[in-house]
């Protein structure tokens, strides 16, 4: 069973408050992550690799926040692939939202 330890370790290593599924406190900077879909690769009619598609959302009130690059480097070091990154600015809240989509694969 995947307890997402390497993902959690990577995100906590950024030093930014990190939450699973829901942020209990929305500070100037925070990260929320959640599993959004199970992934499968098949061979010979059976799953050869499984993994998870993970949403990692970084919210910051700092313009041009370098923490986004730190997050990417920590994930890369942990062997977690970022497959998409979108950036959006929320007028109402003042947050810049970096929306990462990552894949965390395990064997079998």
């Amino acid at each position: 069973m995947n307890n997402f330890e390497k993902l959690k370790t990577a995100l906590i290593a950024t030093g930014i408050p990190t939450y699973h599924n829901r942020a209990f406190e929305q500070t100037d900077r925070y990260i929320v992550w959640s599993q959004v879909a199970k992934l499968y690769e098949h061979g010979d009619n059976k799953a050869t690799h499984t993994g998870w598609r993970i949403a990692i959302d970084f919210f910051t009130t700092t313009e041009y926040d370098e923490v986004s690059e730190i997050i990417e480097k920590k994930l890369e070091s942990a062997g977690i692939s970022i497959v998409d990154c979108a950036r959006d600015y929320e007028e109402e809240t003042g947050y810049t939202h970096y929306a990462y989509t990552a894949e965390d694969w395990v064997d079998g």
Partner: protein
Amino acid sequence: MAEIGTSGLANLIKELEDLGADIDEISDEMLEAGGEAMKKAWTEEIKAKGHVDTGDMLKSVKAKVNKSKKTAEIYPQGKDKKGVRNALKAFVLHYGTSNIAGDRFVDEVESKGSDAAVDAMYEIYSDELGKRGF
């Protein structure tokens, strides 16, 4: 958003052309079939994820076909009754905001839809080969 095209099938189309097939008609049929398969993936995933309120976004999913470029773009189009772009609603539901958790549902659309689209397009190609004794 999801886009399919026939450029990746150029060799297959060339083979059909060499066999005397009307490739423009066949590639248009393949594009339409693939577009319908992708549209079905969009609507099924929108419903599966519960992203239906008024139904405006669900009903707005259409294939925008460019026959000269042999491509089709399939995504929620136009605006709803309140003037909000349906593609924007899909963007927000996919990526989320500080108040809404994003579920990355469009990735599922593209994953399931692209497989179905290729199957649908291949069926037409295969039928055309069959008509010519292959």
